[in-house]
């Protein structure tokens, strides 16, 4: 069970999650400082480590739309946040699976800041309101990447298979 620390609406863009002016910073070890940099109060809470790992951001539809910048995922992963949204934009979803950021798709989710959410099997329970919501599993096509613990290790495995097989 974890607490909702930020509630956002539909169409949260990667420009809002990780503003363009910090894009020259690329390494996952360095991006966390700029998470939601234009929302100064929330950025400060993250940077001062006031929020325990697993804390939840709740968004609406199309979370992570816009730019493909991977910093928008590594910055959230760096703070070990969980993102619950009604649905996600394609590239953000792929990037999250690739880097191992925890996402939960719950099309009907209703939650406020301060509510506690818990996963119960295939449902998401808002323990504060007492309501439970259906979740949509992540794309099956990408299961192998999730099982491997992310795209780096999955690609390494595939690369070794390819190289050991030799040229076609």
């Amino acid at each position, binding site marked *: 069970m974890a607490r909702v620390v930020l509630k956002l609406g*539909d*169409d949260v*863009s990667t*420009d*809002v999650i990780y*503003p*363009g*002016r910090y*894009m*020259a*910073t*690329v*390494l996952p070890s360095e991006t966390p400082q700029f998470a939601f940099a*234009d929302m100064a109060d929330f950025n400060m809470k993250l940077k001062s480590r006031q929020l325990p790992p697993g804390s939840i951001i709740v968004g609406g*539809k*199309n979370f992570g*739309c*816009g*730019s*493909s*910048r*991977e*910093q928008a*995922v590594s910055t959230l992963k760096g703070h070990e946040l969980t993102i619950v949204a009604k*649905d996600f*934009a*394609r*590239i953000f979803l*792929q*990037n999250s699976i*690739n*880097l191992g950021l925890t996402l939960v798709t719950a099309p009907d989710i209703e939650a406020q800041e301060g509510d506690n959410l818990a996963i119960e099997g295939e449902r998401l329970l808002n323990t504060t309101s007492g309501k439970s919501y259906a979740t949509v599993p992540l*794309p*099956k*096509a*990408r299961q*192998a*990447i999730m099982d491997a613990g*992310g*795209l*780096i290790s*999955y*690609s*390494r495995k*595939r*690369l*070794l298979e*390819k*190289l050991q097989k030799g040229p076609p």
Partner: protein
Amino acid sequence: MGMTVVEKILARASGHQSVKVGDVVEPRIDLAMSHENAALVINQFLEVYRDTGYEPRVWDASRVAIIFDHRVPAESPKTASNQKKIREFVTKHAISKFHDIRGDIGGICHQILPESGYVRPGFVVVGTDSHTTSHGALGAFSFGMGATEMASVWALGIAVNIEVPATIKVNVTGRFAPFVGPKDLILHLIGKLSAQGANFRVIEFHGETIGKMPTSGRLVICNMSVEAGATSGIVPADGETLRYLRNEAEVTDPVEAVLPDSDAVYDRIVNINVGGLDPQVACPHTVDNVKPVGKVVGTRVNQIVIGSCTNGRLDDLQIAAHILRGNKVAQNTRMLVFPASGKIYRQAIEQGLVAEFMRAGAVVMNPGCGPCLGVHEGALGDGEVALSTTNRNFKGRMGNPNSEVYLCSPAVAAASAIAGMIVDPRKGGLH
């Protein structure tokens, strides 16, 4: 069962007779593009190779393209160091499709790829930039991805575990009114579909209006397809595609179009007649907040931006210069022009357009992405309003969360520069 263009391209690229929506395929990649974020791709690529005992090697150096455009010339030591690291990698791995900060071959990636003849009909193109959808304008399946996914492509030469997307067919008929064009069409479509309306889908463009539209306009509509959430936009290749490749991209080798079957299955079909279409404006802070220009006429603007991967091509600069001719940019409004490539910049100089802009009071900058995403030049002050031909108006997009961005065509932008407020380019004695 018939196939859409993208189904055909994916079937061919992954060695299948046919594919259908939802199939998982691993297409071979024909072209893999990155810009300054190649610095992160390199980092992740070396991670893929770590502890394998093999020397890191890009699967096919001739299919990797790297174009510096986001922060050119470098705005900070950090960017300059990233660019230096990328140059060293490019040399070491003999990457030939490298476009450094130069006046001859430099420019914005989504103009450099088509104008250099790197994109062909039927190609699978991937890029670490969401506007990689642009290259569907040449009948390729072209989509954006993150840096780690690109690192995987560099290592393997395929995109792993791709789900075949559904396709929305958009039929466009009718003739644009004067000062109305492709930008207005795509803004109108995004408003109609919403920012999520094409999520996980391809938009395939058809109809007489598209048939008559030059590749420069097709690049505009495919570029912004992602603003409706689309995986890619695509215009099936035709005579215009061949003309562009031969005459403008100097491609001499054979070009083969991939066309949809007549019984292809579409997720939905959208019909648009552009005959009565007004100039369109996307209002703050989402691209689907689209209104006919009449609804926002009179809005004061502090900065006009004409350029970018969306509208920095020669015909965009021509119409803007035409409108500005003999006029001045309004007091208290500044106008910045960013041609999309060095080649377009030179053509604009040769045709006298740059002189027209400067006489009117505009500042002509070097090609680059800078102001569009608030990373380099053209920042807005608190409470300021920009009217821009770029593709996004999210809160903070131009570098300041306390500012507003409206999106429009070059014609609306140029006419509004003269007035210092948003105006309809069809009014005010322009012809």
